[in-house]
């Protein structure tokens, strides 16, 4: 059992844990966090492929590493957009006339 394989199992577990949260959490913020967890697990899987592909004097295959870097930045942008949407959604649903605020950050129809 090499370290890469061990972290590969860890990655699989991260994806599963993130998927659990993505499906079950009703609020968008927690869904976004869960999505990031699945993303981290996915990136780790790329990293395992990179580590196993060490050759030609490199300690890891550079191609998957480059893809992970791109993916991390995309995930950040997605999170920032989702959060901005979420916050704006709540502002647009300001407290109603009778004083009680709308249910915060829910996605129910």
């Amino acid at each position, binding site marked *: 059992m090499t370290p890469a394989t061990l972290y590969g199992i860890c990655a699989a577990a991260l*994806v599963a844990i993130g998927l659990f949260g*993505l499906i079950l959490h009703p609020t*968008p913020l927690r*869904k*976004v966090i869960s*999505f990031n967890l*699945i*993303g981290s*697990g*996915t990136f780790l*899987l*790329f990293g*395992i*492929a990179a580590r*196993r*592909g060490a050759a030609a004097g490199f300690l890891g*295959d550079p*191609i*998957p590493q480059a*893809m992970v870097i*791109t*993916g991390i930045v*995309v995930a950040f*942008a*997605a999170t920032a*957009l*989702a959060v901005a*949407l*979420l916050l*704006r*959604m709540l502002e*647009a*649903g300001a407290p109603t006339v009778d004083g009680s605020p709308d249910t915060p950050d829910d*996605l129910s129809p």
Partner: protein
Amino acid sequence: MMQHATTPGGWLLVLALMLPVVGMLAIFALGQRRAERIAFATLAAGLATALAVAVAVGRSGRAVTYLIGGWQPPLGIALQADGLSAVLMVMTAVILCAVGVFARGSFSSPPDGAETRRPFVFWTLFLGLWSALNTVWLAQDLFSLFVALELLTFSAVPLVSLDGSRETLRAALRYLLFALAGSVFYLLGTGLIYGAYGTMDIATLHQVVRADWATSLALGLMIVGLMAKAALFPLHLWLPPAHAGAPAAASAVLSALVVKAPFVLILRLWFDVAAQPAPALAGAMLAGLGAASILFCSIMALRQARLKLMIAYSTVAQVGYLFLVFPLVMGSAALDPWASVGWTGGVLQLVSHAFAKAAMFLAAGLIAEALGHDRIADLGGAAKVLPVTVAAFALAGLSLMGLPPAGGFIAKLMLLTASVETANWWIAATILAGGILAATYVFRVVGSALAEPPERMVFAAIPRSRELAVLALALIALALGFLPLQPFDYLAIGRGGMP
């Protein structure tokens, strides 16, 4: 190892990707004053590029390829236009041009030149969508396709909530979450594929792919992710509120083009990456979900009170037709599946629906502007005020129903022929049932529009040019109906290279 080579005219593919990006950056950096002019210049140049690519593919009879940076895949990334991609590029360019003409009326800059939010956001994201779509049609690398999918999502989501109301923000957020979930599953599958084969290049994968369970798991994850993005039943819940909530010009692009991109990727994965022949059971399952989409969402469309929601449900239903293609192409007795009626029918359904749906959404937008609302029951008087628009809506509806002489008729007839040929009787029955349901919901709208207007109804004036843009799209959907009722050789270009 598969050797790609840049073919003459390959540089056009680069232009197709980069022109919209340059336009978008220009609008961003120069301020919005010149947004429309930059957008229209880009539209003209992009349309010319798409047509040039189509001609190049047709003349050479082979796919047009370009290696970015000269690096050989799988180290580098290749762009390739086969017959299918060329058709998709031209379709995209024409529809975007028509939508652009339409959108001038909704998103014009104010005369004093001050920058305002809605035009700025619309035109920049409009061009972003174009670049993303062209990348999906052309890129031959699974990871580049992931980036293209993200490009598509980021361009589409803010358009849904452009008006800033709470409902559209909620629809946009739901759309974003579904899209991100789909993307991450696609990426997960891509990672597994790289771990197994050491390449992301589609052509290389076609040569080395094995039919083992690990590959099936990877492809399965990718296809499930793409199904969510294509709103295939039961992952379709995000689409109706999102497409209905966007401004009409954006809805047209979303339903006609954006939702087709994930489907085209599933086609690529199925036919170009997966070991052939793909398992028949999986094809049947996809077709089964497609049939469920058709029947369930056509019925939902019937039950809608608002016009835009009805059209959005119709989109989900019509996209379901596309998923019927899988068992039909694979089971074809023809020596070359790309020359089969099923393949041509599927592509024709995609293209004619794109034109018809774009026309419908733009028509709905004009009707809503003129009447001030889009309740189906109260559309009386629309036919008097906007005769061209309502006629365009009806013509587009012909395509959805599958009645001659529309493109949708030819497409559905081809699919029917293929399903009879391959003895998939349940598919034939679904196609017929879907056509009847579509007829019902289209006639409901047209009938309401032809009714007498209530007294003292005030209508807003709509310029003729916008109506004509809508009519043009509907007429193209109609013109596709004059194609001969046989497999279309152009669509087989570039596919023969796949052994």
